[in-house]
């Protein structure tokens, strides 16, 4: 017959195994969720292509992009504020795109300019097109 002390040791050992298992598989589950609908790949695509546009832009340009697919993916992931999908860090020259509820992808642009007044315009002229609009300016 097992004594009380032995039972407690066995129980704590099992709990430790279960906790370890849960931690490992929650990380795995998170990884798979991020890839659902190709969100990770589309984040990489939008971040790098927007950075590439900025690299080729001159100060004074206005850039308008059809981001309907990005907003559709973000909506499926539970994002309702489309303006939170795209973010620009002018101090570090970074554009970041988040199509899931957390995480995202960031990409640097080497052109020393500033991105201003960025916004997502929903249902452009009554269509189903959502547009990302931003201005390129001289670095302050």
């Amino acid at each position, binding site marked *: 017959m097992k004594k009380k002390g032995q039972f407690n040791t066995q129980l704590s050992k099992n709990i430790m195994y279960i906790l370890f298992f849960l931690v490992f598989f929650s990380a795995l589950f998170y990884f798979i969720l991020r890839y659902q609908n190709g969100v*990770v790949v589309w984040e990489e695509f939008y971040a790098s292509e927007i950075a590439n546009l900025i690299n080729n832009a001159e100060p004074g340009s206005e850039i308008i992009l059809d981001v309907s697919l990005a907003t559709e993916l973000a909506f499926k992931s539970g994002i309702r504020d489309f303006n939170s999908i795209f973010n620009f860090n002018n101090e570090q020259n970074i554009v970041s795109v988040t199509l899931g509820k957390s995480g995202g992808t960031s990409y640097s642009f080497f052109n020393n300019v500033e991105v201003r007044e960025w916004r997502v315009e929903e249902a452009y002229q009554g269509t189903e097109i959502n547009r990302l609009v931003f201005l390129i300016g001289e670095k302050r």
Partner: protein
Amino acid sequence: MNKKGEEAINFIPFLFLIVVVTGAIVAGVLAFFGSGYDPRASEAESLYRAVSNCVLEQGELIFKEGFEICGFNEEVLAEEHLVLVEYLENRKLIGVFDYSNQCYLNGDDLPVCIDGEVKGFRILVGTNQRGERI
């Protein structure tokens, strides 16, 4: 008798099993979705074009003033990029110098480079930027 060492040894097969199962699932997901979008070639082209324009506009002034006169952010170029400009005895570079060797090797993890010449200036640019998870 149940010693602590014995418990540790019992833990190894459990850990091995978890690592193998996780590895297989991750490999499956990556195989299905691919290794992601690779923007390096288009960035290398943009960078080469920008450096060429700067060489045409500024000429040898680049060697005195640096790449800031080209409108580049040197902090961004210092990591995962290389820009090398040579003219006669002059040479100016920014970024990862080892890319000047890696550019001529084959491999998916190596930088994508463009080596060319504009008005006698040798220009070598390379990038290995793939985007960062946040």
